[in-house]
């Protein structure tokens, strides 16, 4: 643990020095503020539009910032061989990966909190009545980032270029939002006599399921989420992310520099 903390600090500092971090944050805040313009087009439902665009912007920009950090830092460090400098010190490979990953999560958390405060301020000005689901939505956005960051690191270790790792992560992000459709696909195929249920089930459990965490898409759902459901959603995200991170450790431990 003692060796992981300096790597987390190093990742944080490196991210904060990056111009792209500020560009993403600034752009997100601009989008959140510009949601006021969209809300003007929707009299009667202004706060809803601001809330939706704001939460959407927070999620997308947190996702972009996590990807840029995961791909830029880990892959970049391997390409310019500076990773050897770190590994030459008494740092084990799993400590390096977990340190990097925790650093990325830390910076994403800061990002999400800053954007959420901006959005809350805007909603407060517009007279929005606070809803507990807002906090749940923000927490679950962070959990999505927890999963996608772990996958982004894994993909950047497997792939050979930044473009392929970014597109691979983006592809997983989309697939994670449509995993439920695999059930429908299975139903259609069974109707046509094609039985690949086991194969589809394997894919279903291998891919991340972001729909569970998409509270911002069903903010108006009348039935509140039960405490045990939230517990299992959080548990699923953390366990899935740790599987992906340990896989990254496995890939990284077999690499030669």
């Amino acid at each position, binding site marked *: 643990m003692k060796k992981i903390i300096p790597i987390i600090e190093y990742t944080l500092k490196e991210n904060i020095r990056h111009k792209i971090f500020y560009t993403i944050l600034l752009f997100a805040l601009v989008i959140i503020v510009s949601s006021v313009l*969209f809300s003007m*087009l*929707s*009299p*009667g*439902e*202004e706060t*809803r*539009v601001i809330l*939706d*665009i704001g939460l*959407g912007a927070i*999620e*997308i920009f947190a996702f972009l910032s996590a990807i840029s950090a995961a791909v830029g830092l880990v892959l970049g460090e391997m390409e310019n061989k500076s990773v050897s400098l770190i590994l030459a010190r008494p740092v084990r490979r*799993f400590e390096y990966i977990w340190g990097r990953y925790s650093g990325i999560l830390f910076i994403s958390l800061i990002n999400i909190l800053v954007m959420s405060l901006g959005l809350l301020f805007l909603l407060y000005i517009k007279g929005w009545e606070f809803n507990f689901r807002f906090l749940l939505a923000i927490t679950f956005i962070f959990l*999505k980032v927890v999963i996608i960051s772990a996958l982004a690191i894994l993909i950047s270790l497997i792939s050979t270029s930044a473009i392929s790792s970014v597109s691979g992560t983006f592809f997983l*992000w*989309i697939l994670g*939002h*449509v995993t*439920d*459709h695999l059930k*429908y696909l299975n139903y259609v195929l069974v109707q046509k006599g094609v039985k690949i249920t086991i194969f589809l089930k394997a894919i279903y*459990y291998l891919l991340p*399921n*972001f*729909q*569970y965490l*998409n509270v*911002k*898409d*069903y*903010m*108006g*759902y*009348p*039935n509140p*989420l*039960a405490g*045990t*459901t939230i517990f*299992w*959603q959080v*548990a*699923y995200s953390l*366990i*899935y992310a*740790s*599987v992906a991170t*340990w*896989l990254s*450790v*496995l890939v990284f*431990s*077999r690499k030669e520099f």
Partner: protein
Amino acid sequence: MRKSIFIIFLILPLFGLSVFAQHQVEKRFQFPLPSIIEVKPSSFIYFWGSLLGLRRISSDLAWIRLLQYYGTLEDEEHVHHLDRCERGEYEDLLPMCQEVVRLDPYFHYAYLFGGGCLAFNHERYDEAIELLREGIKNNPKFWKFRLYIAAIVYTRTREYDKVVPLLEEAIRYRDCPEVVKFFLASIYKARGEFGRAIAIWENILATSRNDQARATAESRLKAMEIYR
């Protein structure tokens, strides 16, 4: 090599736990939105929005598009309908409302607005009830849809004595669309209860954020100066 085997033995039970946790979530929770394939959205933007996990934004965009459609004069061929509903027939009003509420089935205001416009502006009672019934199916606890249906049914049978108390209750709520307020005001006016009609228009003028609604209320108030 031993390290790799150790990590693999660590990953396998963790993956089993992840499947177990996912199974536990599935047992307790079903994603409460219809599949985007079932919705069959009219624009690829809504489709992609859903794929990216931005379903409510897609619904908002469809909603803004609906308001733009309903706030714009229809083309020349519909001008002969102007005496009936002032601006046109808006045949796509129901499918556009349905698209909005199928993207987000919990968008209460869209049901109320669509139902109100269809029934009170265009006398398309069946379409209004169809939309509100969909609302009841998706939101069984949201009682205002039932109130609107009752008001629409009485309007259709011209039992205005029964409509008035229902609409008076409806306009007390903040999420009541202006179209319902205008309809109640027009009933008051037709019955000669000018004071009550004026009170509603003044309320719209003072509280509405919709420029068009405010302008209409203002013009109605100016017209009422003749009666005063």
